[in-house]
């Protein structure tokens, strides 16, 4: 019961973010960057500006809608990069073993030892602030967990009869990896990616706070929140709404990820009432 409720809530919140991002041009009453009238700055929420306006006089509601695009981009692209790196390394390491496995495992251990925020911080310092840098930085930081999962999944799948059968039937290694192993470990990878989307959005906010996130005028939630920090007393809505947006979307990704994991893992399902 609770499982389904969580999954539903997660799916609902995620859908909401996706819709907000996709439909932003139609839903947003104002342009997130150009409709900045300083005369109407820091207005509290009202009929025109549902979530109020920020220091530059921009509509917070519109910016949050457009911000969903950025959060989704950050979440999805960084996780795609993570998954591609993690799966490629993990799967080949698990499948081929040997020195390649030792190398990948060593690298994974190194990456795990460097706190991801600090690694992202370093990469951002090299690449400079901005969306592309952020995507790369976050894409390069969290693949180690995916890699570990891909590796261990591959190791256990490798000894499955159907993978060994594919070998005896003459399948090449690559064909086996793509047709036999990859489809069967997509579940946990997808779960990791979904959960990773949440942490990517959180990392974006944290990096923005440290001055290294996506920079304005892009309406990213993290940078909105960081900008709003100094307005907390004068115009709390400027901080509250982006904060809520981050919270709810990350909650959505997390619930969805948990839900997916539980529904993919029948062991968990029977255990949860």
């Amino acid at each position, binding site marked *: 019961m609770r499982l389904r409720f969580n999954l539903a809530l997660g799916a609902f919140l995620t859908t909401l973010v996706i819709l907000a991002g996709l439909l932003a041009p139609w839903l947003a009453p104002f342009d997130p960057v150009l409709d900045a009238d300083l005369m109407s700055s820091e207005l509290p929420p009202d009929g025109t500006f549902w979530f109020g306006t920020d220091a530059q006089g921009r509509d917070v509601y519109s910016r949050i809608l457009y911000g969903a695009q950025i959060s989704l981009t950050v979440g999805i692209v960084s996780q795609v990069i993570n998954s591609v790196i993690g799966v490629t390394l993990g799967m080949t390491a698990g499948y081929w073993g040997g020195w390649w496995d030792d190398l990948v495992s060593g690298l994974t251990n190194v990456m795990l030892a460097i706190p991801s925020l600090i690694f992202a911080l*370093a990469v951002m310092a090299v690449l400079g602030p901005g969306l592309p840098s952020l995507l790369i930085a976050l894409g390069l930081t969290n693949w180690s967990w995916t890699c570990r999962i891909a590796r261990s999944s591959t190791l256990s799948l490798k000894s499955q009869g159907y993978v060994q059968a594919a070998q005896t039937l003459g399948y090449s290694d690559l064909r086996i990896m793509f047709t036999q192993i990859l489809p069967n470990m997509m579940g946990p990878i997808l779960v990791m990616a979904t959960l990773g989307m949440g942490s990517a959005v959180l990392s974006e906010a*944290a990096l923005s706070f440290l001055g290294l996130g996506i920079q304005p005028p892009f309406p990213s939630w993290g940078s909105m929140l960081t900008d709003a920090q100094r307005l*907390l007393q004068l115009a709390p809505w400027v901080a509250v709404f982006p904060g809520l947006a981050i919270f709810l979307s990350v909650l959505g990704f997390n619930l969805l990820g948990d839900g997916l994991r539980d529904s993919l893992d029948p062991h968990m399902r029977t*255990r949860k*009432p």
Partner: protein
Amino acid sequence: MLQFTLRRILQIIPTVFVVALLIFVIFSVVPGSFAASLFADGRTAADPELMARLNRELGLDKPLLERFVIYIVDLAHLDLGTSFRTRQPVIELINSRIWASLELAMAAMAFAILVGVPLGFLAALRPGSILDTVTMIGAVSGLSIPQFWLGLLMMYVFALQLNWLPSFGYGDGSWRNIILPAVTLGVTPLALLARTTRAGVLDVMSADFVRTAHSKGMSEGQVVRWHVARNALVLIVTTVGLQFGSLIGQAVVIEKLFSWPGIGSLLVDSVAIRDIPVVQGAILVIVLWFLVINTAVDLIYAAIDPRIKQG
């Protein structure tokens, strides 16, 4: 056991070496320089001659490879170099900050353990109950909150509105100063601990040997005390270790927000002014901390779980 311990400790070295290499490479291509950062606030006009002189004095005009060799040789002598900014040995700078970070990390971890583990345990013993539902919703929420947003809210509520606690800084080191940052920092590990504890306990509860214990005629309480607790502990210790190890790295944001004089804020400040030796030193120390904690966890693990020692 001694061999096992030694082996685990020796295994740290290559990792540290690779990390050192990695951060050296990253920060050798980072744009901006310490010399230029001196004039970044526009308060004094940039002086190109001074900048050139500074770069020469700091050895930044040497070829990359030479710098790397010097760096590694120094590292091998446990010398982390000299700060560009303060011209003090990096090790001294770190020494002056690491303890505050450890204090914060320990306080946060203590908070997370003292609250998270019992909550997770109770939730697992009564799956589906209100306590369980609330705990799990709280846990996933705790994982979804932007930390500095939470910190800001706490600061406003507990320091400004209620005026219960000081809002920032280390003060004279009293426990009152540490509460807000520690609680903020502790939320994530708390949520994770509550979840893993619950999952771990449920996992153990469904294990065959628990059924065996019941078939011996034990009561629920006896089963939990005699058989479940220790097995669940294995999982909890792992999570505690991973969290504790990475907490100092995660604390960067919180240290900045609460002006906590830890290694995280030292790191961020040093990155901002490109005080590269300090950056490298701080990251190495943070990584070393992670590795040491994890090795310690492995050893604890081996002490709890007799199956480990063999392999």
